[in-house]
Structure formats: C-alpha cells, structure tokens
C-alpha cells in the first residue's frame, strides 16, 4: 500500500493509525533479523504518536496526507532524546538535544516515527557493510548490498517495513539504494529541504530527500518537508510548489534529453536493455527523445571527489586520533582527504561553478534528462569489483558513476524503478532543472514502472 492509499483508508475509517503502526512494527520485527535495516526501533514513541494521530482525526484535526503514516529516519537526522549514531562508533551513544528540521516538520505533519535506519559509517560510502552495526541486506537478495549510504532506508521501504524513509544524498546516497532496492528515491534541488540538525558529511554536497514506493508518494513527503529555513545557510527562498498534484497523464510533447556521452559507456547489458525499453515506451507515448551531449560527468565526478574528500576530512579531523574507531573503508577516504592541498579544494569549487553554468544551457533544449541510475544492479556483500562487459571496475566507483555529478551541480534528480526481467531492480534517473521538482514528479509517474 502507498502513502496515498493509506491516507485514503485512514480518512475512510477503514483502518486506524495504530493498526498501520502495529502492522509496520510486525514487519520490522519480522524482517530486521534478515535485513538489519534499523539501528534503533522507536516502538514506544511510534505507538504514542499513532494513538495521538487517531485521536486527532476523530476530533476532526487533519494534519494532511502524512497524518498517522509510519516512517523511518536515516540515523543522521537528529532526534531529541533518541540516539543518532551516524552509523559510527564515534557517535554510538550520541543523544542529541534538539531535533532536525525534517523531523520537526514530519512530526508537525503527524507522521509516526518507527525508528532510525542503518547506513554506511558516517554516510561515507555505498555498500552499507557497516563494521559497527553489521551489514544491511537487500530485500530482493539478502546476499546483495542495498546500496548506500541510505541503505537501511531503501531496505525498509522496499521490504514494506515503513511507508517512507528519509535519506541523505552527498553523491547518490538516496538514488543508489533506490535503484538497488527497487523503490523511488528523490534528491531535491540544493536548498529545497533544510539540512538543519542533520549530522553532515559534506557541507556543500549534502541533500535531504525521501525514499518511497512511488513518485507520487515522494511528492507527498516533499510537500511536508520543503521550504525555507533560516537555520540552514544554504536554504532557498524559492517558492514551494504542490509536489503531489495529479500526474501529467501524458508524455505528449515532453522533450526527454538522452545523453549521447558517458551514460551509455560501460553499462551492464540488463541495465541497458531496461533503459532502452523505457525510452521506446516513452517515445511511443508521445514524448520526443532529444539526443544531447551533457557537460562531461567524468570531469564533474573528479571535482566531486576532491570536494568530498576535502570537506569530509576537515569535518572529522577532530576525531582522527581515534583511528581504531573508524572502519577501514572510511579511514582510507579520510586519510586521502587530509593529503589533498587546499588549493585543489578551492579550484574544485571554482570548477563547480563552471560546470553549473554549462548545465544551465541544457534546459533550453529539453524538459529533463534521462539516464540509468546506476550502470549495474546490486553487487554482492563484500564484492569489491564488478565486471561490466568484460572490464573490472571498483564497486564504489561504478555505483556512484551516474549520480554523483548531479550533487555538484545541485540539480533535482529522482530514481524510479524500471520494468525488467532481471531478478534485481534497475532504476531510471530523471534529472531536472533547478526547482523543477513538481514537473519531475509528474513526469515520473509516466516513466517509471
């Protein structure tokens, strides 16, 4: 059941929030031993919030579509009095004294918090093979990774443990678990959703967004969490739209940009087949496919790595004397960041502006750009390289190759599942111009499976 359907059932008195919450708890307890999607389960709080939601609805107080809906937060969102670990040993006992803006808004919207989901240590990576809290597993095949870093959120949504889960995305960390787990994942435009009270990985690349079962559900969540927040320096005053309007219903006349560079290189055959089929279906439905060359994502990915390595190492510098408390993957990245010269970081931020200007020109020719979300399906847990058409590639680099550049530019991007004969899910990435979230979500309902 989607948020949209559950909200309708709640209002028709066919089901109560307490019933939805108890069923969600049953799913969580049944799946947690298999998937390890949660770090903390907030059962007592969830039942209290659900009772309150039912009581309010009975008294005619309706907080909107998320009222009474069970959800989860990635364990980077501060929750007052509830530990927020960032998937790390360093913050394993961290009890925040204040709430993140997203948690405030979701509480105000009447949503029911079921718990805090697992992630890659410090949200720094994509395998979710966490050395401190254990590996998170993919609901479609528990031997495979869920993707990351918001892997617990992706697994929790895909396994029907919650109706939606919040994630953070620094270089694909919402969209990668969405494609690997087979759900929708939305990284909004920079500044659209407040980062206040979220444990950061990278000040200039972090974005907050939802993982949901459908694009329409992502719009419902975005309606609750989007908007200006003076407590976040990067927060935008751009007007907020209605992100959950009715789907556009037709692709007729829509110009879909299809990159002729980069995104068609080194793609697994099953991913390429699903993507080509989706393009054919879109064209048959009246869309115009516009081949175009996008600003070189390979170069932007390099810029992204310099920025991320530098900022993450600067952020965690005070803790680096505790080397043994970091996992091997993360300490290796932090060591790299410490060795990069400051001049490289500054020049990476200058190059970023250059590429942002180049990307701005793309939107005169197309309404959105379509790519596969990742060139591969979910690899096995512990797998370090993946073979794509006979060429080995590092799993982390392959998984992030099609998504990380978008964080550098700051564009909104959504991943939705594609129809596939592959046993593992495959995602379609829909990239839009800044603050085009409403249009992207409307299109997505016609493009995804």
């Amino acid at each position, binding site marked *: 059941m989607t948020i949209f359907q559950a909200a309708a059932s709640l209002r028709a008195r066919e089901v109560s929030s307490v019933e939805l919450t108890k069923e969600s708890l049953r799913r969580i307890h049944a799946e947690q031993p298999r998937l390890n999607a949660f770090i903390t389960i907030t059962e007592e709080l969830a039942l209290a919030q659900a009772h309150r939601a039912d009581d309010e609805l009975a008294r005619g107080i309706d907080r909107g579509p998320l009222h009474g809906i069970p959800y989860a937060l990635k364990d980077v969102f501060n929750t007052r009095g509830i530990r927020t670990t960032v998937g790390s040993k360093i913050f394993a006992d961290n009890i925040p004294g204040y709430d993140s803006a997203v948690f405030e808004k979701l509480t105000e919207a009447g949503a029911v918090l079921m718990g805090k989901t697992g992630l890659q240590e410090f949200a720094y990576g994509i395998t979710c093979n966490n050395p401190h809290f254990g590996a998170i597993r993919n609901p479609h095949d528990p031997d495979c990774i869920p993707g990351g870093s918001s892997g617990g959120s992706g697994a929790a949504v895909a396994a029907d443990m919650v109706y939606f889960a919040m994630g953070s995305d620094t270089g694909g960390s919402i969209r990668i678990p969405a494609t690997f787990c087979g759900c929708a994942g939305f990284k909004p435009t920079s500044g659209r959703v407040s980062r206040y009270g979220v444990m950061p990985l990278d*000040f200039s690349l972090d974005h907050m967004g939802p993982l949901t079962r459908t694009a329409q559900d992502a719009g419902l969540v975005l309606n609750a969490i989007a908007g200006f927040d003076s407590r976040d320096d990067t927060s935008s005053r751009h007007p907020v739209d209605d992100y959950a309007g009715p789907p556009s219903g037709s692709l007729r006349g829509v110009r879909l940009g299809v990159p002729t560079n980069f995104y068609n290189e080194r793609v697994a055959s099953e991913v390429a087949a699903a993507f080509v089929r989706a393009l054919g279906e879109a064209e048959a439905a009246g869309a115009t496919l516009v081949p175009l060359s996008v600003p070189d994502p390979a170069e932007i990915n390099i*810029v992204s790595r310099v920025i991320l390595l530098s900022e993450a190492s600067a952020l965690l510098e005070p803790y680096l004397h505790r080397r043994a408390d970091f996992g091997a993957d993360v*300490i290796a990245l932090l060591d*790299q960041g*410490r*060795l990069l010269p400051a001049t490289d970081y500054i020049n990476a931020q200058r190059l970023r*502006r250059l590429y942002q200007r180049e990307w701005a020109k793309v939107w005169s020719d197309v309404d959105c750009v379509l790519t596969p979300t990742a060139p591969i399906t979910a690899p096995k847990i512990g797998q370090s390289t993946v073979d794509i058409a006979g060429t080995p590639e590092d799993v982390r680099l392959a998984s992030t190759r099609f998504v990380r550049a978008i964080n550098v530019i700051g564009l909104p991007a959504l991943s939705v599942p594609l129809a596939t004969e592959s046993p593992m899910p495959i995602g379609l990435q829909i990239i839009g111009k800044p603050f085009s979230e409403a249009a992207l979500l409307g299109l997505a309902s016609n493009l995804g499976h």
Partner: protein
Amino acid sequence: MTNWTALARARALDIPPAALETIAPSLDGLEQAFRPLLAKLPFTLEPAVTLSESAVLGE
C-alpha cells in the same frame, strides 16, 4: 608524481605507512585526472562556496 609519504611526514600526519601505500594509487589517479581541469578556469571565476552576507553579519 607527489610523494604522499613525504608529504604526510612533513605535515606530521599520523597515517601509518601501510595505509599510505594503500591510498597512494587512488591519490595518484585523482591528481592525474584533476590537474588538467585547471586549464579550464577563467582567472576571475570565484568558487561556488563564498562568504555569505549572514556570515559577515555574524548570524
């Protein structure tokens, strides 16, 4: 090519030799890919992250 071991020693970074050996190829690759991009930069182009008015005001 940058000598990462010498750089770490000069900056007194507590990175064990084995760790440096592991990360050196990745840093070499990144440096090789990044350096040519600098030729694209117009002299007056400012970074995407700049001082904000609210920071100047101490907010």
